[in-house]
């Protein structure tokens, strides 16, 4: 049959160049966001990992030193943030490749797949950390869990602050996936 081959009318040159320009703009924004996410998650991991507070008095039974690895959830938080910041660093070359080649499809799909996985990991780490930080601030009377923030002030402030960088990373991931998908969906 004659009509098997699709007949495509070419688009004018100006329009194709404009579309490539939009894709390039998206790729540049992608690169900048990855840098922002890298800085956010790295600073979050470092801030949590360097928490160390010793109260200036002691008794025989109670411990007066607080470190991040006293709580296994914070260890997971540091590991997740460190892994995600390493991923951001490693995905920068792929992002640069997307800037140079506006019509790249496979690299964008790979970035979307890995971004989704890392989004899940980072959200899990930061939410688990947030739950424990909330518990440290409020305690829980029903479970007889004391609010340790009453005693360890600077430890508490530090762990609360380190959540911010982590959530910046989560927001960055959401925007990145949306950008990559919109760049993919444009013909």
């Amino acid at each position, binding site marked *: 049959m004659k009509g098997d081959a699709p007949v495509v009318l070419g688009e004018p040159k100006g329009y194709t160049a404009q579309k490539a320009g939009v894709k390039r703009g998206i790729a540049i924004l992608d690169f900048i966001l990855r840098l922002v996410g890298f800085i956010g998650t790295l600073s979050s991991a470092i801030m949590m990992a360097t928490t160390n507070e010793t109260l200036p008095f002691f008794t025989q039974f109670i411990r007066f030193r607080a470190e991040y690895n006293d709580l296994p*959830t914070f260890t997971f938080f540091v590991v997740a943030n460190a892994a995600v910041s390493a991923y951001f660093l490693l995905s920068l070359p792929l992002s640069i490749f997307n800037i140079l080649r506006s019509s790249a499809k496979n690299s964008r799909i790979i970035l979307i797949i890995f971004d989704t*996985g890392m989004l899940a990991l980072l*959200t899990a780490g930061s939410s688990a950390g*947030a739950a424990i930080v909330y518990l440290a601030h409020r305690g829980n009377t029903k479970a007889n869990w*004391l609010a340790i923030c009453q005693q360890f002030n600077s430890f508490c402030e530090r762990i609360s602050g380190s959540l911010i960088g982590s959530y910046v990373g989560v927001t960055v991931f959401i925007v990145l996936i949306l950008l990559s998908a919109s760049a993919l969906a444009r013909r």
Partner: protein
Amino acid sequence: MSTKEAATTIDVPESSSVPRGKASIIAAAKHGGKAGGYHRGVAIFDFLLRLAALISALAAAATMGTSDETLPFFTQFFQFQASYDDLPTFQFFVIAMGIVGGYLVLSLPFSIVCIVRPQAAAPRFLLLVLDIVALTLNTAASAAAAAIVYLAHNGNNNTNWLAICQQFGDFCQKVSGAVVAGFVAVLMFVVLVILSAVALRRH
């Protein structure tokens, strides 16, 4: 007189200053062909995955919501009742899983639209955006609840937090099961997002 059959070429002068229309015209051979079948398969798989994620999310919310336990003895000082609303994180979990389940119910019609019209990109992109938001909410709720469940199972010596699972066995089991169901829904959301992105690639 013999009619000569000759190919005629017609020159149509184009003025390049006028911008042409944006749509590219593709012959009808492409519609409903192989590309449509592939998209339809992806859309059906998406719909089934959505149903599974809905069941998982609702199961998680229901299990956590009905996790009350009262121990059969009491003393003057201690409380021997455990319920999900004793811990604000579990309240957040129930509410978030309820929201996610409600979103999945509302997204089923859009998924059906994607099955019926395989070439449409707009509903697929909308589902992608909303799925990412739902994935984040789901992961946040499940991870926060998992942190508290871990604490309930193991306690913490350094902060003097006792492991309440030693006393409330049933409560602990139900709550742990709810968290597992929450993470199953997370996994399905990840696959849904990747599926939508892959389907958009072919447009």
